[in-house]
C-alpha cells in the first residue's frame, strides 16, 4: 500500500507578502494580477476570505466585498524563489516529489515511511510522522504554514490536505476513506468543473457518495473516458503515480491591458516584457524552445494565435523576441483593431544539451509555420 503526502501552502502569495512585510500580518491581504481595471485576485489571505474574497475574482468585486483589504500587486519572482525553497525542503524527505504548482506538491513516502521505523505496511504512523515533520520544517525555515494530507493515493491525499485548511493536517486511511468522501460535493473530484457538475446534478448527483450506486458502464456511456475516472475516484481509488520527472510542455505568459489598445508600440512593449519573462523562466529550467507562439485577443474576444517553429532550439531573448516580433507585426491584423490581451508561449521544449556545438551561420528562417484562429465568448 502506498503512502502519499500532499502539501499545499496556505494562501501562498498573500502569506509571502505578510512574511515580507510585518505591518500587514494578519490583515486582509489580497494579491492581484493587476490592481486597477480588469485585474483578478490571485491569492487572498484567510482574513479576506471571511468577506467572500476568492481567487480569480475581479479586483473591483473584491474591493466591494472587502473595502478595507490590503490590495497588492503580485511579485511572481519572489514567489518562485520561496517556491524553490519549499521544493528543496520537500526533497530532503524523498526524491519522489511531484510539484503540482508553485505552492503545491505530492510526495511518495511509501519507502521512507516504512524504512524509518519498520512498521507494518498498513500502518500510517511513519507517513504521519513525515507529514508532521514537513509542516514543522516549512514553518520553522520559511515562516509559512502549509496544509498537509496523508493517504494511500494522490486523490485522497489532496482531499485530506484541503479538509482542514489553513495549517491543517489530516490522514485518510483506507478504512476511513468512504466516510470522508461520502458527503463531499462532486466538484472535489479533480476534473469535475462547472459543466460536469451541472450534468451530474441533472442526474440527481450532488455528493461523491451519490455516485457510488452508478455503474461504471453508465458513467462511461455518459462521460466517456472521464466516466471511468469518476467511477474510481468517487470510491477513493487512484493509482496515478507521483511523477518526479516533470517536464513542462510549454512556458507562457499573457496579460490583459487596462483598457483595449490600438497602439502597436504599446502592444509590442507589453509583448516584449512578457517575452523577457518567459525566456527567463525557460533558462531557469535549462530548456530551449523550438516553437514560439503569440496570442492576441481583440476587444470582441476573438482570439488568434500565430506560431513559428525554428530549426535550432533557442533560449536567447534576442532570437525569441525576433520571431515573436515578426509574428506580431507581420502575421497579426492590428489595423484599427483594439487589442485586449497579448501573450507569448514557448513550446516544443528540449533540454539544453550537455555539450553545445556552435554553429557557423546565424540560424535563419523557420521551417514550419502554423496559426489558429478561434473565438471565445
Amino acid at each position, binding site marked *: 500500500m502506498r503512502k502519499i503526502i500532499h502539501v499545499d501552502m496556505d494562501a501562498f502569495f498573500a502569506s509571502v507578502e505578510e512574511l515580507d512585510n510585518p505591518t500587514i500580518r494578519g490583515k486582509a491581504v489580497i494579491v492581484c494580477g493587476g490592481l486597477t481595471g480588469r485585474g483578478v485576485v490571485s491569492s487572498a489571505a484567510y482574513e479576506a476570505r471571511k468577506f467572500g474574497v476568492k481567487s480569480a475574482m475581479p479586483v473591483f468585486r473584491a474591493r466591494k466585498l472587502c473595502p478595507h483589504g490590503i490590495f497588492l500587486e503580485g511579485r511572481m519572482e519572489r514567489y518562485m524563489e520561496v517556491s524553490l525553497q519549499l521544493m528543496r525542503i520537500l526533497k530532503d524527505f524523498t526524491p519522489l516529489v511531484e510539484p503540482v504548482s508553485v505552492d503545491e506538491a505530492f510526495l511518495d513516502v511509501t519507502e521512507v515511511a516504512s524504512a524509518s521505523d519498520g512498521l507494518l505496511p498498513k500502518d500510517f504512523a511513519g507517513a504521519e510522522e513525515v507529514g508532521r515533520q514537513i509542516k514543522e520544517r516549512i514553518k520553522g525555515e520559511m515562516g509559512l504554514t502549509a496544509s498537509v494530507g496523508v493517504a494511500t493515493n494522490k486523490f485522497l491525499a489532496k482531499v485530506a490536505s484541503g479538509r482542514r485548511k489553513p495549517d491543517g493536517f489530516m490522514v485518510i486511511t483506507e478504512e476511513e476513506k468512504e466516510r470522508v468522501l461520502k458527503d463531499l460535493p462532486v466538484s472535489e473530484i479533480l476534473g469535475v468543473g462547472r459543466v460536469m457538475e451541472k450534468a451530474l446534478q441533472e442526474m440527481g448527483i450532488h455528493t461523491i457518495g451519490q455516485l457510488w450506486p452508478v455503474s461504471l458502464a453508465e458513467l462511461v456511456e455518459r462521460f466517456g473516458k472521464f466516466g471511468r475516472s469518476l467511477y474510481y475516484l468517487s470510491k477513493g481509488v487512484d493509482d496515478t503515480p507521483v511523477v518526479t520527472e516533470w517536464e513542462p510542455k510549454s512556458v507562457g505568459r499573457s496579460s490583459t491591458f487596462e483598457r483595449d489598445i490600438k497602439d502597436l508600440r504599446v502592444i509590442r512593449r507589453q509583448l516584449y516584457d512578457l517575452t523577457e519573462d518567459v525566456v527567463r523562466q525557460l533558462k531557469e529550467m535549462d530548456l530551449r524552445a523550438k516553437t514560439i507562439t503569440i496570442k492576441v485577443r481583440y476587444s470582441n474576444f476573438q482570439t488568434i494565435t500565430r506560431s513559428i517553429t525554428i530549426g535550432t532550439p533557442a533560449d536567447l531573448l534576442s532570437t525569441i523576441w525576433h520571431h515573436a516580433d515578426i509574428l506580431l507585426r507581420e502575421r497579426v491584423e492590428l489595423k484599427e483593431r483594439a487589442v485586449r490581451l497579448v501573450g507569448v508561449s514557448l513550446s516544443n521544449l528540449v533540454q539544453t544539451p*550537455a*555539450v*553545445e*556545438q*556552435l554553429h*557557423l*551561420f546565424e540560424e535563419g528562417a523557420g521551417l514550419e509555420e502554423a496559426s489558429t484562429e478561434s473565438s471565445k465568448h
Partner: protein
Amino acid sequence: MRFSCQRAVLAEGLQLLSHVTAGTTTKPILQAVKIEVSENKAVLEATDLEVGVRYLLEPVEVQEKGTVVLQEGRLAELLREWPEERVCMELKGTMCHISGRGGAFKMAGYDPKEFPTIPIGVEKGAIEIEAGELVEMIRKVAFACASERVRHTMTGVLFQVEAGTLRMVATDGRRLASIREKKGTSGRGPMEGIVPRKGIEQLARIAERQEGKIQLKLEETHLLAASDRATLCAQLIEGQYPNYKEAIPVNNDKRVEVDAEILAGAIRRAAILTTEERRLVRLGLRKGRISVEVETPEVGEAKVDIDANYEGENLEIGFNPDFLLDALRAIGKGTAHLEFKEATSSAAIKSGQDFIYVVMPIRLTEAS
C-alpha cells in the same frame, strides 16, 4: 535491334548506371535502363529524373539498330550469372532475347518512347579538369554536406567557377570544407550551382573511370559533365547557398603546425572514451605541443600529448572529434596547419594552398 559484346563491357556499364536508377518509385520505367543501338555503337541510359547518365558501350558488334528498355536490376543480375564471355541481345517484338549457353531468356521491355529524355553532353562553355583531381576534390569536401535537411541547400556541394578555377564547398552548418582546383583551366566562368549528393556521387564515379579530362558545365538548372564514355546531367538544388566566404576566419592568430596523421591518431584514441551524448575532445595548446583530452563522467579520462610547432598563447578549445578527424582524413599524409582565435570562434584547418576546413567548437562550460 541486335548486338553482341563482352559480358564484362555490358556489366561495367550497368554497374555504373545501377546507382542512377530510382530506388523506390511509382514509375517503374525509372528503374529501367535504355539500350540504344545505332550503326556502330550502343549507348546505355538511366535516370531518376534528378540525375541522368549516358554511357557508351564499346566495343560492341552491331547487327541491327534499335532500342530496348529493360529493368536494370534483373538484367544486371542475369549478367552476373551469365556463364559465357560474350552476350548477345536481340529485340523481337517487345521481348528482348538473350540466349547462349546460359540459357534462353526473353525479357519484357518498356516502350522506349516513354523513357525520359536526358540532355546530351556538354557543348560550349565547359571547363576541363583532370579526372583524378576532380575525384580528389570531391573526396575532400563532399563528406561535409548536411545529411539532414537543416537547410536544403546545405545537402549539396557548391560548385563555383571563377576566372576558370573550380572551387567546391560543402557545409552542414557546423563545419565547412572548401577546396580549389590547383591550377585554373581556361579563364571561363563565372558560373555556380549547388549539386545534390546523388549528382556528386555519380560525377565521382564517372571521373574514377576516366583517364584524361572531364568537361564540366553549370547550366542554370543542371550540372553537365562529360568523360570520353559517359555524360552526366544532374539537377541543381535551387536556393541561396550560405555565405561561406564570411564563415572562413581571417584573423585566427594562434597558428599550429602538426603532423596530420599523428594528430588524427591522438584524437582517435582519446575519442574512444567519449560517448554518443558527449562527443567532446578538448584541444589544449601550449608552447611546442598540443594535448588532446577527454573527460567523460562514468566512462573515464584520456590525455594525449603530441609535439607541435606552436609559439602562441595557451588556449583550450572543445570539438566534436569526428569533425576534426574528417578534416585530417581529407588531408591524409603531411602537415596540417591549424589556426585558432578563441574558444568560442571557428578554427581553420588548412593543407597546402587549396584546402580550407572550418570547424566550430563546442562551448566549454563548467559542466563540460
